[in-house]
């Protein structure tokens, strides 16, 4: 079972990477153009193509790439020569610093909202709010808090002057810079969590065990919190896991809006610069993270909750 799941997980990652490989090698304007296009030196384009082994037939390049991938070598950036893995790991903390608090914030607040005694139209208003993209929320936040009230920074991860020392002061400065982007990303996603919590809890409320508890005279509020929620949580967390990709995608526009040097910006700039190995590495990395998270979440819950069968 585990082996089968692992095999499929690897298959998925391989598919994602192959797709990226194919797309990027079929695209007009290769790395030669990105590197030497500006100078237009005669013969230089061919020289670059030869240098990177791009003058060979595509299947050969693919096989070569796959073999190196098998040994964990994601290749090197055409633009900077840096290893792709180190580039990604260098940027990962920024995206994590944005995504992790946003996930936590939206999970906690969203669950809480979803548990509120639901009035009519709750689902509709949450669905409507979810329709507001994160960058629009971000633009409004910037207008109000950064430009209007002037209490929070407009862009960046730390103070640009680089005069803030290490330790706590630096952490605080970073936190100050992250308030608006995290809020923007979280506000967009917490509505989704709230909706999901509500649906799940409502489903649990109709099960025999909750009905029994209610019949015994347990207050409805407590039935929700003590009985329905823990059971609903299992499914919730695994769904949140599958939403991770959504958070990362949302982070792209937020990183662009707030000029944060995370993975999303890396994807956009590398794709435009035709920095093939970096883009392929990113697609590979992201889908690997998403697949692995899902796998771990699934397997954990299969342990915790026998009800989670193959069907889920």
């Amino acid at each position, binding site marked *: 079972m585990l082996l089968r799941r692992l095999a499929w997980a690897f298959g998925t990652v391989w598919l994602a990477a192959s797709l990226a490989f194919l797309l990027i090698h079929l695209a007009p304007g290769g790395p030669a153009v990105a590197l030497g296009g500006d100078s237009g030196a005669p013969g*230089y384009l061919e020289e670059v193509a030869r240098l990177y082994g791009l003058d060979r037939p595509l299947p050969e390049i693919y096989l070569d790439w796959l073999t190196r991938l098998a040994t964990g070598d994601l290749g090197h950036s055409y633009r900077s020569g840096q290893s792709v893995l180190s580039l990604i790991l260098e940027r990962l903390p920024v995206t994590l610093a944005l995504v992790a608090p946003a996930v936590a914030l939206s999970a906690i607040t969203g669950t809480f909202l979803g548990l509120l005694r639901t009035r009519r139209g709750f689902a509709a208003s949450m669905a409507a709010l979810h329709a507001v993209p994160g960058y629009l929320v971000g633009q409004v936040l910037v207008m109000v808090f950064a430009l209007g009230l002037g209490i929070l920074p407009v862009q960046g991860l730390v103070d640009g002057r680089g005069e803030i020392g290490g330790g706590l002061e630096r952490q605080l400065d970073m936190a100050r810079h992250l308030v608006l982007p995290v809020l923007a990303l979280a506000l967009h996603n917490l509505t989704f969590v709230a909706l999901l919590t509500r649906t799940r809890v409502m489903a649990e409320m109709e099960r025999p065990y909750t009905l029994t508890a209610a019949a015994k005279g347990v207050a409805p509020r407590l039935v929700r919190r003590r009985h329905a929620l823990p059971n609903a949580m299992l499914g919730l967390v695994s769904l949140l896991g599958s939403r991770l990709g959504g958070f990362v995608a949302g982070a792209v526009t937020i990183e662009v809006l707030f000029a944060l040097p995370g993975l999303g910006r890396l994807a956009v700039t590398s794709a435009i610069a035709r920095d093939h190995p970096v883009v392929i590495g990113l697609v590979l990395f992201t889908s690997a993270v998403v697949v692995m998270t899902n796998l771990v979440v699934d397997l954990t819950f299969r342990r915790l909750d026998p009800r989670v069968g193959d069907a889920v």
Partner: protein
Amino acid sequence: MKFRLTLAIILAGAAFSTLTARAQVAVVAVAGDPGHLNPAISTAGPLHAVADSIFNGLVSLDRDGNVQPDLATSWTVSPDGREVRFTLSPGVKWHDGKPFSAEDVKFTFVEVLFRFHARTRAGLAPAVEAVEAPDADTVVFRLKRPHPALLRQLNVTEAPILPRHLYAGSDPNRNEANSRPVGTGAFRFEGYKRDDSVVLVRNENYFKPGLPKLERLVFRVIPGTNTQIAALAKGEVDYLGRVAPSDVARLKDKATLLDTTSGPGGANCIMTLAFNLQRPALAALPVRQAFAHALNRRQMLDLVQFGQGRVAQAPIHSAIGWATLPGALQAYEFDPAKANALLDQAGLPRSASGERATLDLLMFPAFARYAELMRQQLAAVGIALRLKPLDPAAFATSVFTQRDFDLALISYCNGVDPEIGVRRMYHSTAIGNVPFSNAAAYRNADVDRLFDQAGSSTDTAARGEAYREMERIVARDLPYWWLVETDFTSAWRGDFADFAPWSGQFAERAFQKR
């Protein structure tokens, strides 16, 4: 409420504490990641915005385009104009402590600039026979013909000098020093975080005494002009090299603004519409004349450029007074009716839905507003435009390598001498795989001859006459339509002074008022 107030006080306090501790630091916003920091192999804007502060040219140019000393303290031109001898500043050291010498200059020109720097390769290399270094402090340029524009092509943006000891015998495109540059310039490289920032620090051993004054120069990569403007208004950024015309009004009372016609790598620019003369529809002169009558250039200046510039009056920029021909384009007044008549006459009748032809217009994304306005204006005469914004690499490939376009919107910078930036637009030898050369693929033997004549003479009056004659011809042939002369605006916060936005070394003299 109370909580919010407390929070505000804490945050304000944090901001204040950083204010009081402020050293001489300037934060500069750049729109894109520089990629690497070797200015001799690329003409890319974000790269030069950062790297030009690390390096020097042989000379520099002041605000009016006059030549000033940089690495060279003086120079003499031989009577026949074919030998130029530079005396270098003594005792200059590279940032790594190695001495700078004439060999570095020779190496950089021959091995790097003449091969990889797009403008210098196209605009200077063909005129140079040899670069020699007879002794450590002397560089001699031997020219094939007199080349009056030479001195103006030797500033840091056009010809930055690289350290030979780090680059000799390597592929300059893949040298490690590209991401950890070593120069002679006012600022030393300290750190580079991709897509985030480049930090430079003061070069304590700079060969110009008393300079630079700033201790740190921080470049922040901020995509999106809106965020840049907001950051400047809030004090997170101190200097913007380019402010979009639409944003100038927003900064009027928040920053010091300076308008110039020249900036590093782009002096005296004219927004130009290039016709691909190899496309049958555009090979017909009446069609190009119709474009000239159909486009409302005044409206472009007002709505897109927000008045920052002038409607083009001649093929050569009005700031090059001795070569420009005012009134050369007078015959083409804005007159859609005339344009319609010309198009009818050219055999492009309107279809049932009103359009005569659909043409592809290629441009940089930054010029999208020009293109959209042009689409509106041309719709009135029945010409439909398909807009295709492309990033610089793709644009250069489509227009100059594959020649797959109908119309291209290009900001052609004339430079301070027509030999630098005008010749490449019209000379038949400049057709082909060189970015931002003769996009129209225009060929006219008379025009070629006039350029060759003007380019090899040292007599300014005679050169001016040749250029004006050339302008009369191209104004008649219309391989391009010259739209608007665009001025640049730079902005910096009021507590700074002496930025030089017309130069790559814009922060060499800048300081923060106490």
